[in-house]
């Protein structure tokens, strides 16, 4: 019914391109270190989750964003706890990049009462308003208009907070994206739409689902500033997000970032799902792995002598063991009590 069409994203969607180390010359070293640390933390945590799934410890569907870490880390560089961030089914990184609680996330993924959602949500239903994470739920596209409403509230508050909606290229096929873009544009709502275009929705390549691979065209059609960028370049993401978030804070309304990226794992779970779409194959996957956002930043920092290989290795080891300890603690945490089944149906339980 459909055939591969020419890419409008060009090199942004071509794994053979843009795999060089980043240009870090003009960036403050501390910032680079923070980006590296945050991306690495997210990667390691999701690797732990992948292992949990393989071992049968995590039973809820887990959608891993391994390979996509730069998007949330770059955007979150400009966010504050008073902002209102919403995600979807693949939102571990969206939460963690805000400085989210690692143990709370891990416990949640195992369905334990210590989790950020008290074990009622699992991987796909996260909330932690202390860091500005207002909720992720797995129904595709669901939180896009909810984020717009949170932005409307920010506008009414008049204090410069912004809302952020993370969604995927698949979600851009739900009509509600367009209703949301129109509301945001018409009412001048401070909301940043962040589309992680990883070129796939489940098993289908975007070429099988849309006449163009460039999602930013929808922001343009609704007359909000829209950019398509390399989502595997954390510096490019941060650079793109900064002025758009600043504008929104200043009362100048919504914007859209399309961050082109790729997931290393399959749609759900730890496997790699090769050969499911038109293009996704071992070759494509291997090419995209060369465009790994963490490696590109680390290589640049090593080349610029901002850290030594040994220091990097030590840092990684430290993070791994810290996370392993939290994971172990989560594995031992209690499940929600039976009363939880009815306690949270309505408001009123302790918040």
């Amino acid at each position: 019914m459909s055939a591969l069409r020419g890419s409008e994203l060009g090199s942004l969607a071509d794994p053979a391109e843009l795999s060089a180390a980043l240009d870090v010359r003009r960036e403050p070293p501390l910032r680079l270190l923070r980006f590296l640390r945050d991306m690495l933390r997210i990667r390691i945590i999701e690797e732990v989750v992948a292992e949990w799934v393989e071992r049968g410890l995590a039973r809820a569907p887990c959608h891993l964003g391994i390979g996509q870490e730069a998007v949330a880390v770059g955007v979150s560089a400009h966010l504050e706890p008073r902002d209102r961030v919403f995600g979807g089914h693949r939102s571990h990184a969206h939460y963690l990049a805000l400085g989210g609680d690692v143990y709370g996330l891990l416990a949640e993924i195992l369905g334990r009462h210590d989790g950020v959602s008290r074990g009622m949500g699992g991987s796909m239903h996260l909330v932690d308003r202390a860091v500005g994470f207002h909720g992720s739920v797995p129904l595709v596209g669901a939180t896009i208009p909810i984020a717009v409403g949170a932005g409307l509230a920010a506008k009414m508050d008049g204090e410069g907070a912004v809302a952020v909606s993370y969604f995927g290229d698949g979600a851009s096929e739900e009509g509600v994206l367009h209703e949301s873009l129109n509301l945001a544009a018409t009412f001048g709502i401070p909301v940043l739409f962040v589309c992680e275009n990883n070129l796939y929705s489940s098993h289908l390549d975007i070429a099988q689902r849309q006449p163009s691979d460039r999602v930013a065209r929808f922001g343009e059609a609704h007359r909000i500033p829209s950019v398509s960028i390399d989502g595997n370049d954390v510096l490019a993401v941060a650079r793109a997000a900064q002025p758009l978030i600043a504008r929104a804070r200043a009362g100048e309304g919504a914007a859209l970032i399309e961050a082109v990226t790729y997931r290393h794992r399959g749609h759900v779970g730890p496997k790699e799902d090769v050969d499911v779409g038109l293009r996704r194959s071992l070759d494509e996957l291997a090419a995209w792995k060369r465009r790994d956002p963490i490696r590109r930043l680390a290589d640049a920092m090593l080349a610029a002598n901002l850290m030594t290989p040994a220091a990097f290795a030590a840092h990684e080891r430290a993070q791994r063991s810290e996370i392993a300890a939290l994971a172990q603690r989560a594995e031992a945490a209690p499940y929600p009590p039976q009363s939880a089944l009815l306690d949270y149906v309505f408001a009123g339980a302790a918040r």
Partner: protein
Amino acid sequence: MSEPRSTSYGDAIRQGFEYLMSTNPKVFAIGQGLWSPWYVGSSMTDLDRKFGRERVIDTPVSELACTAAAIGASLCGYRPIVVHPRMDFMLLAVDPIVNQAAKWSHMLGGRVAPALTVRAIVNRGGEQGAQHSQSLHAWFAHVPGLRVVMPSTARDARDLLIASVLCDDPVLYIDDRWLYERSEPLPEVRERDLRSEGCARRRLGGDITLVGAGYSAYLCEQAAEQLAGLGVDCEVIDARVINPLDEATILESCSRTRALCVVDGGWRPAGFASEVLAIVAEQLGPSALRAAPLRITLPSAPAPTSRALEQSYYPTAETVVRAVAKQLGVGVAA
């Protein structure tokens, strides 16, 4: 002392908005037609002038996003009221209501609940036809996590609107254009906790319990008056909040009258009337009633347009009178 002035149901809704918006800066209204002089009847006239178009927001034709946006605002401390001038069109927004709002608190471990009110107007008759007539209250009564309110009197129209908006849970508030002219003198507003609002006994009687919600409760009251003339002493229960339903009041009444007729402006299968019959059967057991309980509902057809058919489609007080009289073996002039 002068006669207390009577307030219509439509105006009472407007007063509810007025009370809420004057006393609570976090309340706002959003929906189609809110700047129109005719869209929602008398129920919101000039609210945009009084409170400003930032708080009374007329919207594009985007039911889904507008409803979901209200969820988002409610998560950030606001108390939005989303207005759907017709419940039929609200079906485009079932996802935010049922999949999001109703489940939000539960699926996120009670960390936050969306305190939004969705106002759905039942607007039927007038040859508007099948897509402009539905009352799907039973659907929403089926869904855990949602409170569903159906006022039948002017006072409830105002006070239950206020209670809905002040409630921390998502509430579906359903009003009916056929009630907009129903009037009564209104006392001062008293803020109520929606969680403790249940059925109201509109009329005491010993022969049969009539149960209805919204416009159907009004039909029950009218039918009860006519039936009194035939010597049938009806008890009338106005359900008011159909989810969660105050079963106790209905059960108590039925165990006394030992007869039941539910009037329901929705369809029959798996409807609100079915639920009331089921509760009574299940809780009171066999032999609790003297006669088979009755359901008076719409026929199993979409709403027609042509007036000739509309007239037979919608139950009236007379429909109720005839059915009850027949069931209880009382004579009624044809």
